């Protein structure tokens, strides 16, 4: 049985930090001995969630983003918290192609990526208070 291990990272809302967040989680995840594909899956999901916090949550405003990652047995749980503007209707936001920023290259596929690449995605949000995204993935189940 593997023991539990936990890390937390906090960083400025800044597009420059998306890569840092992605690689930090990937480096932490290596302890579960994932395949490259599993690492890529988790990195993609983290990128999408952190990008959303920066672009939608804080928009151009300054703010902090907190990312917690827990390894338990063969499962990684990643929680991404912003204290930004929040989401009015989470179910609608999670629909494929739904976006509130269609002007730019936002395709409305972020939540779809998270759901495709992780086993579980849970979003909690309150307008004016911020958004929490919790994602889980079991590592190693595609092997055997």
């Amino acid at each position, binding site marked *: 049985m593997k023991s539990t291990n936990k890390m937390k990272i906090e960083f400025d809302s800044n597009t420059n930090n998306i*890569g*840092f967040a*992605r*690689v930090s989680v*990937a*480096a932490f995840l*290596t302890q579960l*001995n*994932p*395949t*490259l*594909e599993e*690492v*890529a*899956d988790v990195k*993609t999901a983290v990128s999408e969630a952190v990008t959303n916090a920066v672009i939608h949550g804080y928009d151009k405003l300054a703010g902090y983003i907190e990312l917690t990652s827990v390894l338990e047995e063969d499962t990684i749980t990643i929680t991404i918290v912003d204290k930004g503007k929040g989401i009015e209707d989470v179910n609608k936001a999670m629909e494929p192609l739904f976006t509130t920023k269609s002007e730019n290259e936002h395709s409305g*596929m972020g939540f*779809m*990526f998270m*759901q*495709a*690449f992780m086993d579980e995605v849970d979003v909690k949000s309150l307008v004016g208070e911020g958004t929490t995204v919790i994602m889980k993935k079991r590592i190693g189940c595609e*092997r055997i």
Partner: protein
Amino acid sequence: SGEIKRFLRDDGMVKVSRSLKENGYKIRQATQSISHEMGREATIEELAAATELSAEDIVMAMDASVEVESIYKTVYQ
């Protein structure tokens, strides 16, 4: 979700790097040719441009412990 993943990948929207070993080789090659050309050490931005990898992925690929962890992953790919 396996099908969606395959679709997103085949579509080129998500890049899966072949292997950290392969990246390590590309990075070392670029390091050599840039320093030869410029007469000084390559910066991470120059390496990122030459290898088409992100700067963060370059530092991760160059981390020994991560490379060791990933040996059997190259077999998987």
